[in-house]
């Protein structure tokens, strides 16, 4: 298809490079530098979507971030990007986009029937229509809403694109490269400040790209190019295009989304798609510019009705005509600039100006060009369904209430200008309370809340001369506060056409007998009548009106609709706009892709993976791993066809019969040093620590101040003032913070230091009756007899040339030792243990066998110390000192903690000795009791006892001490199981603890 609406030799797109792309399956051509919008308009395509509620035809309304209509979906190589603005997305070879909100096609959309049923879709229709009966929600209402709503479909596939995060610091961040942004960046950079200048569009310059002005004897475009080139050459300046600063957060942190390769065909594998910048700026200059306001009239949502500034930009930047019979409808001088541009390109526009008889340089210029101008004229309604074909226009009375001489004139587009709205979103997000400026009928930022200032048209300054001067001053002032270099450069001379005042008129009254829809919010289909209805129904607060009507709630966040909505509410309420106030602006200013927010923290990178130094050995020996916090631990070592059950049973049995070795590197380790270390431990643990001799270990329990068990583990006295504490894998970080809290804040007088040494030591637990024999071979020079190294003893020795620490401690309940070597020697240690242990039938065992061994011994772990148990509940009351005070002791006196029938640790065995009891089962007296069946307690851990070859579980049940011997039931409603059980002692194996001392 030929580009019938492309002008020759006008604009900034690269005519040398033709690019093909597909829209709704059809192939079109554009040029490098085109957006989807400009390329489609060049091809005469204006119908791009259907509206949200009524499914009315939608075209293009703007030319940038404010676009409410042209939301498309990009599909490529099984990738899917919804919520793409056609006015922002640049075309590239092979691009494929399609319309959203329409079915089966944009030209014939069944949902458009909503348009004819619009009496059933009034304001708040979601609240009214879908209320009753409640049972309809899941089956009828919700599926209907889901099908009808939304701007595209998200992909459910993994996003293969790469997104990155970057952290940056600067003296000055400037958010927009229009005249004020360029001038302030230049002034600040020349004064030595570290500057970041961000521009959301591909081209720098903002309004300078399209306005007929002169700065320092250069055109706006020339001056922009000169300043940008110089800024780019300065080492203290970062200049970024395609980068939207979308959020202003606490303490001057702003977030910017950089579209790195959204405009490129995806050929460079490692180039990120987008990059999110977290920028901590000393100072911020908000130069986000302003957005033209629409005028409101009948059917003002018809494709072909668009902002006059957009029409001008399509001509000047893209060399594209939005129409060949344009009607310009304006209340200010901006519309004339667009008209003059049409005229210069050989197209004859007609201007309808709502003002009575204004005069200015620009109006005179338009008159001299013989452009037809009708003063006191308005557009009553656009005519045409899928594209504007004509317009009903009328003369309007001086009080703007009466319409006369309604006539129909032919046109193919209506360019509207209702004056300008400063983009105060970022200023508002920073906490700046805005104020209403009567002169421009819009809000501007008030006093700075953080280190921010707003400049240029974002601050309501609409003349270039004033903008440039103010921006040079602000750029110098804020930079000089930081650099103190006093290097002030002179402000260039500015030549521009003088404008006259705008007309406060914004909404065309309905002619008698007509009920045209006059839209305020183009993306959410909110019309004047909807707001009127909401107010009739009693809504007053603008925040309520917003939510009830959905005004300003779509992805464009009301960039074009907000002020007209406020104007209407204030007109009806007979208030002025500042009394109505405006709704809160929240980040993001423009939609941000989820991928960019997540960055590289996806899949395996969402959290670190910790591996022990022996990890590769486990891998080579068929270990099946399990996540233990962020650690990967061997769960079992698979042999042949074994599953978890068989393998863990074999491994546990081998520990009980021969000897096993388990990687215990993940246990938390904390080094404690200082003359007051013993006193500190005595306060931290519930049992006594003052008399522990050097070379001995002790098991300890620590509480939180509320009396609940926090953690347990052994601590060894290495030397007089040096202790080695171990914690559970899960609580390691919390215990360290806990110790630091008491040392730094509560008892700073104690001379003690703590530091985590978890990663400094590799640990191997050797357990089983053969473990002493193995130890004798590993440490031939060490006396490892029961007298030389007794239970809870500690020795240092030499393991084939590497120094090792040997602790005689046991979690399995067997004769056992734990060997620690420096992490670098961990693999060597493990290999030596396996090599020497061969003749003693050594086998490695994983966490599953470890659990089995501790459960049948009745040793508590995380499943019992679950943040709800006090020492008594876990049968640890023997470790609670009566004599000394310690953290949490006072809480143990609370009445609930001293009742005798508290839930307590017991053992549970199924009567049939074969049915395993699911963890989490309830223990009940009568399985057939009326619901809710009173629960005696729950099963905390289950295993297959290798000692007795039958299932065994631990449970915490009410009055557990007196329940031993009782026949009860374990019920698991989840697994639909009821199992008759007998309550036994939690010490199922070796209750006297002979083996560990053997």
């Amino acid at each position, binding site marked *: 298809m030929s580009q019938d609406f492309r002008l020759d030799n006008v604009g900034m797109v690269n005519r040398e490079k033709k690019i093909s792309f597909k829209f709704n399956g059809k192939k079109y051509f554009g040029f490098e530098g085109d957006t989807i919008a400009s390329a489609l308009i060049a091809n005469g395509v204006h119908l791009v979507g259907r509206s949200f509620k009524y499914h009315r035809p939608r075209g293009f309304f703007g030319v940038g971030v404010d676009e409410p209509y042209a939301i498309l979906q990009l599909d490529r190589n099984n990738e899917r990007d919804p919520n793409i603005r056609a006015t922002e997305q640049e075309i590239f070879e092979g691009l494929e986009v399609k319309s959203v909100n329409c079915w089966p096609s944009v030209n014939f959309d069944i949902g458009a029937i909503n348009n004819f049923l619009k009496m059933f879709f009034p304001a708040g229709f979601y609240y009214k229509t879908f209320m009753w009966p409640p049972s309809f929600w899941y089956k009828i209402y919700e599926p209907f809403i889901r099908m009808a709503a939304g701007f595209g479909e998200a992909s459910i596939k993994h996003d293969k694109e790469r997104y990155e995060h970057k952290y940056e610091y600067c003296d000055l961040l400037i958010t927009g490269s229009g005249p004020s942004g360029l001038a302030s960046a230049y002034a600040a950079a020349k004064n030595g400040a570290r500057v970041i200048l961000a521009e959301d569009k591909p081209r720098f310059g903002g309004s300078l790209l399209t306005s007929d002005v002169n700065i320092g004897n250069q055109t706006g475009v020339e001056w922009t190019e000169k300043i940008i080139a110089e800024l780019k050459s300065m080492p203290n300046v970062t200049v970024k295009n395609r980068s939207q600063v979308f959020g202003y957060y606490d303490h001057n942190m702003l977030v910017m989304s950089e579209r790195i390769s959204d405009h490129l065909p995806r050929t460079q594998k490692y180039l990120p798609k987008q990059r999110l910048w977290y920028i901590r700026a000393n100072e911020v200059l908000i130069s986000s510019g302003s957005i033209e306001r629409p005028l409101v009239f009948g059917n003002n949502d018809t494709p072909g009705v668009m902002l006059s500034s957009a029409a001008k930009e399509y001509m000047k930047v893209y060399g594209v005509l939005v129409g060949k019979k344009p009607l310009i409808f304006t209340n200010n001088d901006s519309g004339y600039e667009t008209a003059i541009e049409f005229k210069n390109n050989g197209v004859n526009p007609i201007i309808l100006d709502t003002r009575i008889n204004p005069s200015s340089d620009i109006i005179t210029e338009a008159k001299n060009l013989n452009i037809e101008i009708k003063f006191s004229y308005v557009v009553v309604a656009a005519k045409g369904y899928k594209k504007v074909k004509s317009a009903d226009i009328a003369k309007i009375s001086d009080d703007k209430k009466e319409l006369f001489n309604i006539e129909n004139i032919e046109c193919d587009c209506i360019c509207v200008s209702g004056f300008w709205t400063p983009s105060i979103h970022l200023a508002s997000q920073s906490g700046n309370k805005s104020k209403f400026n009567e002169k421009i009928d819009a809000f501007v930022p008030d006093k700075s809340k953080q280190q921010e200032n707003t400049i240029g048209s974002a601050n309501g300054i609409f003349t270039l001369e004033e903008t440039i001067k103010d921006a040079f001053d602000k750029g110098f002032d804020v930079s000089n506060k930081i650099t103190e270099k006093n290097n002030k450069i002179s402000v260039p001379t500015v030549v521009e056409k003088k404008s006259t005042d705008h007309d406060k008129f914004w909404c065309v009254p309905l002619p008698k007998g007509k009920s045209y829809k006059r839209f305020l919010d183009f993306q959410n289909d909110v019309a004047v009548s909807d707001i009127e209805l909401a107010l009739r129904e009693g809504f007053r607060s603008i925040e309520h009106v917003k939510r009830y009507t959905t005004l300003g709630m779509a992805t464009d966040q009301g960039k074009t609709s907000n002020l007209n909505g406020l104007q209407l509410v204030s007109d009806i309420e007979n208030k002025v706009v500042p009394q109505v106030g405006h709704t809160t602006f929240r980040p993001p200013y423009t939609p941000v892709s989820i991928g960019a927010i997540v960055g590289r923290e996806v899949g395996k990178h969402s959290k670190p993976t910790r591996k022990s130094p022996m990890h590769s050995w486990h891998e080579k020996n068929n270990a099946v791993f399990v996540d233990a916090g962020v650690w990967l631990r061997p769960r079992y070592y698979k042999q042949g066809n074994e599953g978890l059950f068989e393998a863990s049973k074999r491994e546990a049995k081998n520990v009980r019969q021969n000897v096993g070795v388990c990687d215990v590197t993940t246990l938390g380790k904390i080094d404690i040093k200082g003359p007051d270390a013993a006193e500190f431990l005595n306060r931290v643990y519930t049992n006594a620590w003052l008399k522990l001799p050097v070379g001995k270990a002790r098991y300890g329990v620590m509480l939180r*101040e509320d009396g609940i068990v926090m953690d347990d583990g052994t601590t060894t006295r290495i030397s007089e003032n040096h202790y080695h504490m171990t914690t559970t894998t899960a609580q390691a970080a919390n215990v360290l*913070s806990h110790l630091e809290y008491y040392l730094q*804040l509560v008892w*700073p007088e104690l001379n003690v230091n703590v530091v985590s040494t978890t990663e400094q030591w590799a640990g191997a637990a050797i357990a089983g009756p053969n473990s002493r024999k193995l130890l004798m071979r590993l440490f031939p020079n060490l006396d490892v007899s029961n007298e030389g190294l007794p239970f809870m003893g500690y020795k240092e020795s030499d393991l084939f040339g590497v120094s090792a620490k040997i602790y005689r401690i046991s979690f399995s309940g067997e004769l056992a030792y734990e060997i620690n070597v420096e992490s670098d020697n961990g693999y060597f240690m493990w290999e030596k243990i396996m090599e020497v242990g061969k003749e003693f039938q050594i086998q490695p065992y994983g966490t599953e066998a470890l659990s089995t061994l501790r459960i049948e011994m009745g040793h508590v772990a995380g499943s019992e110390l679950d943040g709800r148990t006090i020492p008594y509940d876990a049968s640890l009351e023997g470790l609670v000192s009566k004599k000394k005070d310690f953290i949490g002791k006072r809480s143990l006196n*609370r009445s609930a903690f001293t009742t005798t029938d508290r839930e307590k640790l017991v053992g549970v065995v199924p009567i049939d000795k074969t049915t395993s009891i699911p963890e989490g089962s309830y223990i009940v007296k009568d399985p057939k009791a009326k619901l809710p069946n009173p629960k005696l307690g729950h099963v905390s851990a289950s295993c297959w006892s290798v000692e007795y070859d039958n299932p065994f579980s631990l449970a915490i049940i009410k009055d557990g001490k007196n329940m031993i011997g009782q026949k009860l039931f374990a019920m698991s409603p989840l697994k639909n199981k009821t199992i008759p059980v007998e309550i036994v002692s939690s010490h199922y194996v070796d209750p006297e603890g002979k083996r560990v001392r053997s």
Partner: protein
Amino acid sequence: MLYINCPHCGLRSQNEFAYGGDATVKRPELNKEISDQEWDNFVYLRKSPRGKHLELWHHISGCRQWIKVERDTSTHEIFKTYTANEAIE
């Protein structure tokens, strides 16, 4: 994201810190006879004012020191930061 001036390390981003709650709570001395009420107040009662508040923050990804931060809970303004045992003005 807050920018917290650790008295030991300087200005650091909030994500290096863990929040520690009300810094005005004082633990009763060890071995001291106190009423149930007094103990319960220490264990469970925390101030949560709107406005100026003295809070504990733990610089877990930095110097590992607990610090005190005087912050406005509604505006997030930080007035002053203190080391663990500095006298509060």
